[in-house]
């Protein structure tokens, strides 16, 4: 418990003024604009949108500037802003089948229809610092080639035809929303996916990695990873039909997991699913692995006691804003709490000393 303490106003005001000055840094260096952050730090912007759970590149860029590049602080700002917006409704589920792909790869099928399209990836770069970027350099034009018009089909669709992979149950049920009702456990898969897609990238990555190292290993292949734009449509009551209200970039990962069959399911491949705002590949793959690990119960697998199988552990600790809020509150004044702790320790010491004195006398 912490109590209000007066007397800090001037110190707080001055601290904030200094914060603003430090944020700006050396005024001899040109100031960074929000548009520059949006365009040139776009993967940071994407992460803030995904974990802030609000798709708006300009706002995310502003939050990054305000937070001095502290992405969790920026996500905090976005979450706080989000609560001020009236909600107009929910979209139709986005059709990732119709995604216009910048990138689309499969680790399972070399000759997947639609091909392996690398897109603007860090893969195959040498991870050597490029000092040309430190100097002002010329911008090379990205080469172009005759574009394929057709939408690229999902790879899991092919496995589905042979019945070799578990199918997803079709449904149009309204999904639960953890931003409206507190999360209840056990959580449905829909709720787990919502929690994971806005979860902390580092936490979800760590959980996913633990499954690869053997804690509830589920032998994941990246069946397909795609990054691109999809149209968002919403039914508008005053019109009586659905219209496109915008376009967003998404990263989708479908894993194909080895599965020997269980008490309830035949031997077949199973699936993990990741879908995240923006170009957020590491997060989408991590999400798919953790999603798959959390499905042990519905697939009739054994609980091997691995952290990634523990829904309560994963879902209650994935949110970096909840985590940092609770963690950082302990630095706020706890003077009264601590005073009583102090009294308690003094009392215990007095009693212990009295005991010793008595024993010595006897």
């Amino acid at each position: 418990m912490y109590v209000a303490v007066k007397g800090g106003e001037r110190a707080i005001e001055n601290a904030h003024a200094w914060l603003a000055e430090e944020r700006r840094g050396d005024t001899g260096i040109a100031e960074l604009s929000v548009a520059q952050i949006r365009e040139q730090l776009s993967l940071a912007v994407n992460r803030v949108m995904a974990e802030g759970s609000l798709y708006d590149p300009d706002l995310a860029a502003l939050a990054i500037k305000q937070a001095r590049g502290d992405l969790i602080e920026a996500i905090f700002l976005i979450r706080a802003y989000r609560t001020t917006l009236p909600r107009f409704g929910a979209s139709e589920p986005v059709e990732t089948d119709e995604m216009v792909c910048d990138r689309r790869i499969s680790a399972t099928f070399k000759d997947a229809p639609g091909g392996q399209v690398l897109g603007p990836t860090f893969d195959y770069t040498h991870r050597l610092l490029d000092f040309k970027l430190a100097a002002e350099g010329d911008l090379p034009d990205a080469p172009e080639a005759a574009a394929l018009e057709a939408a690229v089909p999902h790879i899991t669709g092919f496995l589905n035809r042979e019945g070799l992979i578990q199918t997803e149950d079709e449904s149009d049920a309204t999904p639960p929303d953890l931003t409206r009702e507190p999360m209840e456990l056990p959580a449905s898969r829909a709720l787990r996916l919502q929690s994971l897609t806005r979860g902390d990238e580092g936490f979800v990555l760590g959980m996913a990695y633990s499954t690869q190292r053997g804690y509830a290993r589920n032998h994941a292949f990246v069946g397909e990873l795609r990054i691109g734009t999809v149209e968002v449509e919403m039914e508008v009551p005053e019109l009586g039909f659905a219209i496109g209200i915008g376009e967003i970039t998404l990263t989708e990962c479908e894993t194909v997991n080895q599965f020997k069959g269980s008490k309830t399911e035949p031997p077949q491949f199973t699936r993990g699913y990741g879908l995240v705002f923006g170009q957020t590949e590491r997060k989408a793959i991590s999400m798919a692995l953790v999603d798959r690990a959390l499905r042990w119960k519905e697939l009739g697998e054994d609980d091997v006691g691995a952290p990634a199988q523990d829904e309560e552990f994963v879902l209650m600790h994935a949110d970096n804003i909840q985590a940092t809020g609770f963690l950082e509150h302990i630095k706020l004044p706890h003077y009264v709490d601590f005073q009583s702790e102090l009294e308690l320790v003094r009392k215990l010491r007095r009693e212990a000393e009295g005991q010793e004195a008595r024993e010595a006398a006897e």
Partner: protein
Amino acid sequence: MTENSERQAWMSTLAKAPAADLARLWEGLGLKPEHEMLRAPEVGAVMVRGRTGATGAPFNLGEMTVTRCSLRLGCGAVGHGYVQGRNKGHATNAALVDALMQTEDAGRVREGIVGPLTEALVAAKAKRRAKAAATKVEFFTMQRGED
């Protein structure tokens, strides 16, 4: 195309078009239709949904910002604007264009605004597709040393 699908197409174009492009084309057309606001421009959020495994049950992915506006022209035509982002001018211009597209000015508005915006969106998309196509892997099999 039915009447609805035509309207869906132009509303979707107006939602996605850059606000500055729409504003410039709107100014260029020089139309200043009398209108009354039915719903003043308002910034809000829409919860975007995905589907489990791309084909299964819906789940909530996160929200996006949307600005909406509704108005009625002097002639009675009602226009709605639902646009991505937080630009109130964008939503107002979209609602004005939506309303005018239902009047005898539709031809001019299509030619001066909706057409060029659609073309720009298609061109931008084609450019990205072409860049993506250039990164497509062309596998070839190395000769095996078995014979």
